[in-house]
């Protein structure tokens, strides 16, 4: 996904064009406009995996500095935080991985949407230990592993050991691990 594709998907949304002009003229207007974007643009999916509100929020983040993005995240409701997590890999200012603290915050929550979003493409900036803990948390919470970007490329022997241990614990309790996690484990233990 690129910002240009999101922009194309939102072509004709006057509210967004006006909001971008206002933010350029007065950066202090951003938090309020960012908070309103979902109800102004709507929650229908406009490109796969992106609602109009999420796409609009990503575009409002373009050209914002990291400090401003941090503050929007800290002051955001769950939907605003989710939009920011999704937008991180698309933003030039976050290219070097400066947004990692936001992923760490999301991984500490118990909100499955935020945890899943933290393991999207931007998780390439997470160190291996944190990433493995995130994957195990996803399995533990019952979130489909499809949420994890580059899972097969990044899975390693240590992750397999952790999954095996979770599978054994579940088996001892008479419970199953999710089918996608068992499949991943089988690929490693084959």
């Amino acid at each position: 996904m690129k910002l240009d594709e999101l922009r194309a998907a939102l072509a004709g949304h006057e509210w967004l064009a006006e909001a971008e002009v206002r933010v350029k003229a007065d950066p202090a207007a951003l938090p309020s406009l960012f908070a309103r974007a979902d109800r102004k643009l709507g929650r229908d999916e406009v490109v796969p995996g992106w609602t109009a509100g999420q796409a609009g929020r990503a575009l409002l983040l373009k050209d914002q500095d990291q400090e401003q993005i941090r503050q929007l995240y800290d002051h955001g409701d769950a939907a605003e935080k989710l939009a920011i997590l999704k937008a991180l890999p698309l933003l030039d200012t976050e290219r070097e991985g400066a947004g990692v603290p936001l992923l760490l915050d999301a991984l500490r929550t118990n909100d499955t949407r935020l945890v899943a979003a933290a393991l999207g493409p931007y998780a390439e900036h997470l160190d291996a230990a944190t990433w493995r803990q995130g994957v195990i948390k996803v399995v533990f919470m019952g979130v489909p592993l499809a949420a994890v970007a580059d899972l097969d490329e990044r899975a390693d022997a240590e992750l397999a050991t952790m999954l095996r241990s979770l599978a054994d614990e579940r088996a001892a309790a008479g419970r199953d691990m999710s089918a996608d996690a068992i499949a991943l484990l089988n690929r490693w233990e084959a």
Partner: protein
Amino acid sequence: MRIFDPHIHMTSRTTDDYAAMAAHGVKAVVEPAFWLGQPRTNPGSFADYFDSLIGWEPFRAAQYGIKHHATIALNPKEANDPRCRGVLDLMPRYLDKDGVVAVGEIGYDAMTPVEDEVFAAQLAMAVEFELPALVHTPHRDKAAGTKRTLDVVKESGIEPGHVLVDHLNEVTVGIVKDSGCWMGFSIYPDTKMSPPRMVDILKEHGLERMLVNSAADWGKSDPLLTVATAEAMLAAGFTTDDVDLVLWQNPVAFYAQSGKLDLAESATEATFEGSSILRGGS
């Protein structure tokens, strides 16, 4: 039977309550910001609390199929502590949020000059942000408190139709009805207001602008008393349409004035690539 509880403090309730409410037809709730038993001593504590009202709590409610919205305010009791005054500066950013459908609970606790000032300031914010206001009436000296509440509401210039005056009883319902404000009744296990008394009030004053809530919190309270009141209405001869008006349509109409009440099931919120991700912690 579908129930909208327009005033309930879910933060202080368990998941068993959510499950029981869902099983009895409660499909939507509004959680007003209020005090937490233990007084807070700085605005940061409020920020974390407000964040949970627009973050974690709606997520928790969604796991039981219940729509959760919030109202945000500095409550009158804590308004009296000067260390908490900075909460007023935090409020604008919360009033912009999608999940915030009113300013509240505001109003009087002990009717101090500070409460006057904070009450008026927050009514002005409701006007500025085009939000309705949820106004609590004091539990002590209720008749005088309600009268003074209505005077302040009138002075503020807010539309009476944008104001819900809550915790009413037989003594205070009449003047609120005459004011044009919406009337809220909190049904409690033993004191204050019971389902049979509520039914009598509805018989006498009609169903228009009438709302019933459980006001359940960390004190002795019961989140199913909305349901009990609906059943008492049916037993007394009210129709299912009457029940739907008081326990669903009225609260929807009141909070929909915010332009932010969202009762639609959101597919993208509840699923990730077709699978539910709302289970959490299996």
